[in-house]
């Protein structure tokens, strides 16, 4: 059998985690990190390791499980996306001070762009904030290699090590080498030692200076012992430009120079951006008149350099301060630093074609047949004047159904409903509030807000959109589903309804998401109850996510052109890829390329123009 395979970057990282003898791996899903944990389970099954592989209810949970397990001396790993570390920031900042026993690798995936995130933050900055080391891989194969070095470094200095793949590494596909599990003799053995494992302020006075010493020792290590990640690619002759590039930006720079066939530019690759190997970087800077730093997305390498005056980077506008450094952007940066001409702008013919054909990028939208669409339609139609906070998940796309007014972060739907309630209350205004949250997000961070709202007597309707899956991130399990990742392991289901009742909710109804009449009626009733009793009321909209492909009744519909008056109500409030507006005929019609025959739109048209296809031809 070949020992090479084409893996997604995330699978390569997962393979590294298992090969490196990691025994506890935890995560909460989030693009671009989500594929790592399931792949850890798959490789652990294949290689027959004992690795515990678990989804935590949120990133804080996942982090704390992995960190405490490492206190016993074994190798552990927690995985999350960049904003997940915000949720886990409290234990992370605290545990960074500890003198760890087992190796702990923290994998945090960044999303420059962003493609699927609420911020564009740079985890390397977080590493700097907590004073822990960070690896920044430039390819999938390198990311896998860095997993081993991350564990070794963590054990050598008794400190958490971060691996920060960015989206292009997570979701690149590359051929990588597969190996067997290495043997390490780390024994699980928790030794009681409150001076080591209890974060009392008195300990911080000892731990903080020790942490400072560790990071300087690691800097020395990065200067001298990591030439496989930090190295120079020299120019031929005198270099017109020196580029310092971290992570995937290095790969992009190298492919650009190759396609240009240029050899008058030298490059310093940085794979360990924090703590920065300063001597190596200073020496490179000294040898060049003209130096630029290319890294994503914050100036982390740049800011660690003591004298930046002759350097081109973000501080003086040579590198954009936001957005992904795509090849086209990177080319432009390099040419600008060289003072060479930049050919800009799209081809005029292509531009004209795009304009005439009215082609724009397609925005993400809820899938055809998605139960959330029906739920939003019911909610919006029941109480059109309501304030509608929402949350993070596929249902954030409910903006297209005009059912989402404000989204901040995971769990914010419940607490924002409280905030809007208080604002209206102090102003003496009466306005319905209906907020939406997904099933995974409910367990992630919905519960504390709900307990708080019951305690403080806040009137709003919480609609829980239960599609039995964490859909946005690709279909992971969560406490409300109960399935687990390792073969043969089963978990237990935590009922959403029971959890709500436990928080003190008294009004709770479970309805079918596809049933628009019932949805409208229940939302109205729930709001009346909430207002009258000054407490949150819960409505659970249930229907499985379309990605689960559960068999369901097919109801074929058509738009009767006689009855359709072209008002676009269905487009504006239902907004389904399978239902489009024909601008020439000024009528709606079904787009059979996308329609999945869920039949919900039959109840959407106020003029009764969307009809079931009856009889044989259905």
């Amino acid at each position, binding site marked *: 059998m070949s020992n090479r395979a084409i893996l997604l970057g995330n699978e390569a990282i997962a393979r590294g985690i298992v090969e490196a003898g990691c025994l506890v791996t935890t995560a909460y899903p989030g693009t671009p990190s989500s594929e790592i944990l399931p792949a850890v389970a798959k490789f652990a099954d294949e290689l027959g390791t004992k690795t515990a592989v678990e989804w935590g209810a949120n990133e804080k949970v996942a982090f704390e499980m992995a960190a405490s397990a490492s206190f016993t001396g074994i190798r552990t790993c927690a995985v999350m996306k960049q904003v997940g570390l915000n949720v886990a920031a409290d234990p992370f900042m605290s545990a960074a001070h500890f003198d760890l026993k087992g190796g702990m690798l923290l994998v945090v995936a960044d999303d420059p762009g962003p493609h699927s995130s609420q911020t564009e933050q740079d985890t390397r900055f977080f590493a700097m904030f907590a004073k822990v080391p960070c690896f920044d891989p430039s*390819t999938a194969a390198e990311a896998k290699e860095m997993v081993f070095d991350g564990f070794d470094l963590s054990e050598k200095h008794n400190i958490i090590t971060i691996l920060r793949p960015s989206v292009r*590494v997570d979701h690149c596909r590359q051929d990588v080498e597969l190996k067997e599990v290495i043997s390490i003799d780390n024994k699980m053995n928790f030794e009681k030692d409150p001076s080591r494992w209890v974060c009392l302020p008195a300990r911080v006075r000892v731990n903080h200076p020790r942490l400072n010493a560790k990071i300087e020792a690691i800097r020395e290590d990065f200067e001298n012992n990591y030439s496989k990640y930090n190295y120079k690619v020299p120019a031929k002759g005198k270099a017109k430009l020196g580029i310092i590039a971290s992570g995937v930006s290095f790969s992009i720079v190298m*492919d650009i120079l190759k396609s240009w066939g240029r050899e008058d530019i030298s490059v310093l690759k940085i794979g360990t951006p924090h703590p920065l190997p300063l001597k190596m970087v200073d020496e490179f800077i000294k040898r060049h008149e003209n130096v630029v730093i290319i890294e994503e997305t914050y100036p982390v390498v740049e800011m660690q350099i003591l004298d930046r005056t002759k350097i081109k980077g973000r501080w003086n506008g040579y590198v954009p301060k936001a957005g992904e450094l795509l090849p086209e952007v990177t080319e432009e940066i390099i040419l600008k630093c060289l003072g060479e001409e930049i050919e800009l702008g799209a081809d005029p013919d*292509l531009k004209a074609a795009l304009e005439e054909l009215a082609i724009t990028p397609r925005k993400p939208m809820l899938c055809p047949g998605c139960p959330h669409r029906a739920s939003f339609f019911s909610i919006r139609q029941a109480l059109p004047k309501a304030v509608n906070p929402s949350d993070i998940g596929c249902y954030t796309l409910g903006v297209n159904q005009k059912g989402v007014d404000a989204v901040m972060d995971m769990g914010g739907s419940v607490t924002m409903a409280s905030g809007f309630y208080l604002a209206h209350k102090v102003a003496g205004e009466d306005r319905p509030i209906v907020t939406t949250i997904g099933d995974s997000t409910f367990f992630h961070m919905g519960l504390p807000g709900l307990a708080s709202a019951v305690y403080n007597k806040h009137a709003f309707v919480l609609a829980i959109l239960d599609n039995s899956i964490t859909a946005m991130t690709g279909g992971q399990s969560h406490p409300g589903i109960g399935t687990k990742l390792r073969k043969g392991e089963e978990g237990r289901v935590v009922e959403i309804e029971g959890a709500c009742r436990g928080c003190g909710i008294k009004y709770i109804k479970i309805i079918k998401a596809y049933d628009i009449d019932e949805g409208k009626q229940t939302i109205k009733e729930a709001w009346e109850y909430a207002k009258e009793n000054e407490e949150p009321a819960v409505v659970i909209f249930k229907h499985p996510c379309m990605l689960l492909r559960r068999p369901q009744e097919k109801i074929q519909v058509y738009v009767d052109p006689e009855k359709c008056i072209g008002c676009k109500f269905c487009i504006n409030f239902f907004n389904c890829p399978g239902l489009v507006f024909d601008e020439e005929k000024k009528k709606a019609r079904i787009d059979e390329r996308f329609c999945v025959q869920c039949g919900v739109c039959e109840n959407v048209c106020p003029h009764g123009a969307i009809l079931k296809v009856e009889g044989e031809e259905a």
Partner: protein
Amino acid sequence: MQYVIVGIGGQGILFSSKVLGKVALSRNENVMGSEVHGMAQRGGSVISHFKVGDYRSPLVNSGDADVLLAFDQNEAVRNLHFLKDGGSLVVNIFDEGSFKNEHLSKYLEKHNIKVHPIMGYEILKEHMGGNFLFLNVLILGALCGAEVSDITLEDVKEAIEQLAPAKFKDANLKVVDLGFRALKN
């Protein structure tokens, strides 16, 4: 060889780059590619990059692609700039009229781009009862039929057999053939 594959989230683009990867691996070639996961998969524009050979970066630069494989004709137009002069476009067409746009034709001619259109939806309606989930396999067949790369029908069939669930095997192989024949002249 550099490919760019474009379409709309949900059309099964990820599977196509997996197939191309499998083919390259069986030939011992180095592979580097990039995919879209997450929010954009929900019906938005999606793009996969795929490079075979000695590359470091997973992204294809504008003007460097040899082949643009488009599951959707509008996405094809939006991403034409990736193709190098003389490159090839394999495109699923649903509205022939608009693809004859004058400016578009001029661009294609100016850059000497060879267009290989396939009426994917029509074919799947006629032969597969309108099951459009087979679009990805159809387009892969079309890629082979158009002979725009060194990937053969046998390569693709073998890779699909290894990657797709066994219960769809016969249907998949039938659809690859449909795509192949549609473009093989």
